[in-house]
């Protein structure tokens, strides 16, 4: 083709730098009068045959586009940290402690409905999974935690989840009896054991005597 190399270069640079697709008229304005921009573009298309990018005509105007077969290579995975909502964390905790459990049971325990969004988010974390169906009317799905859950929270097994008394011992659950007699002797023993005997001061606080 008898197209001037430099005209092709100009069209190439113009298309590259333009923030929007360029019409042949626009290209013609930048080229000498006797040059047909269609010839120039035909040469440019030929030049880019088989390359990773190519000039393409969209709605009658020209632009550079990356080759469609390379779409996968142009994807980048970004990990973004996201926080679980309080409702989601609580639901997850209840499922973890009470599994296998149904959504209705979780709702009963929490006293509020579990939104579909909450379950979706928890499914997305990969920490909960359907475990089966309860053999009760309606055969509701039961939920449990996954191996991924154990890995994320650094637990060997579900048995490693601290029990209620251990939660009290760590102070996460209030150790103060809301009503007298909350603590029976057995509970006190468990607390003492959980504290490994190092909590003399703490224990005396819980002593009712």
């Amino acid at each position, binding site marked *: 083709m008898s197209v001037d190399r430099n005209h092709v270069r100009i069209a190439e*640079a113009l298309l*590259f*730098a*333009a*923030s*929007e697709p360029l019409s042949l008229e626009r290209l013609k304005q930048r080229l000498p009068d006797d040059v047909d921009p269609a010839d120039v573009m035909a040469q440019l298309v030929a030049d880019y045959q088989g390359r990773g990018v190519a000039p393409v005509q969209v709605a009658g105007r020209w*632009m*550079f*586009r*990356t080759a469609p077969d390379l*779409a996968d290579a*142009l*994807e*980048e*995975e*970004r*990990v*973004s*940290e*996201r*926080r*679980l909502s*309080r409702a989601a*964390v*609580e639901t*997850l*905790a*209840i499922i*973890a*402690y009470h599994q296998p459990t149904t959504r209705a049971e979780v709702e009963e*325990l*929490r*006293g509020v409905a579990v939104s579909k969004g909450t379950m979706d988010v928890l499914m*997305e*974390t990969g*920490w909960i999974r359907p475990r089966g169906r309860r053999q009760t009317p309606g055969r509701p799905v039961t939920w449990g935690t996954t191996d991924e859950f154990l890995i*994320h*929270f*650094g*637990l060997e097994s579900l048995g490693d*989840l*601290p029990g*209620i008394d251990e*939660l009290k011992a*760590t102070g*996460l*659950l*209030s150790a103060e009896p*809301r*009503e*007298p*007699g*909350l603590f*029976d002797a057995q509970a006190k023993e468990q607390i003492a054991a959980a504290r490994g005997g190092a909590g003399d001061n703490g224990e005396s606080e819980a002593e*009712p*005597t």
Partner: protein
Amino acid sequence: MNETPVPSTDFEEDQPDAEQGTRLVVDLGAYEGPLDLLLDLARDQKVDLAQISILRLADQFVAFIESAHRLRIEIAADYLVMAAWLAYLKSRLLLPDPEPDEELSGAEMAARLGWQLRRLQAMRKAGEQLFGRAREGQEFFRRGAPEGVRILRRSAWDCDLYDLLRAYAAHRESQGDSEPLKVRRTNVYSVEQALERLRRLLGAMPEWSSLQAYLPNNVTDPFTRRSATASTLLAALEMAKQGEVEIRQGRTFGPIYVRNRRDETD
């Protein structure tokens, strides 16, 4: 010590420069400070700045300021300071150093000024070179409409075991304990029970008796015993308020005694 460190040519050029000063009158506002003006004058010497004659430059500057002064041009203080300093420098250059170790010699001061002018000149040139380069948006362009690399977001959930346990603990706490309440209540010796027992026993014990004596005698569990003590005291206080009993405590934390209320007239 008598030798002057300055080439004699500078003396000869002293006069012509003063004349040149009057010729050089320009708006001082075009200069960014005395150093800028000095650099301009220095370049006027048309030699490599490394070979600049500071003595001659001092004369040029002073003459320039003087001529500007004659023309009643307002001169900023820092120009006058520079002129004065250069006049001083000139005198130091012409006179032998009195105390060599005391301060910078005239030649050293001159060398520093020359160095500063060279540095400024170098940066001025660097700036020109920078902006003389082909620049983005002027001579070359980057992609006008980058398609962007498609970002696939994968979420990593920020929730650790502590969050999980705290949530469960909070949940449990909001629910209250799910154990049957009657288990707790059996341990409690109620104020009603104490009132009933106290009323029943007061008749049998007419004189001052320790509060302990009114406690149920079959209680061994320390909690219930403590509960009974508290309830019995409350019951006694309530009865005292009703005027049914009298209460006495000899000292703080001392034993508490209770007896039936006697008639005032007794």
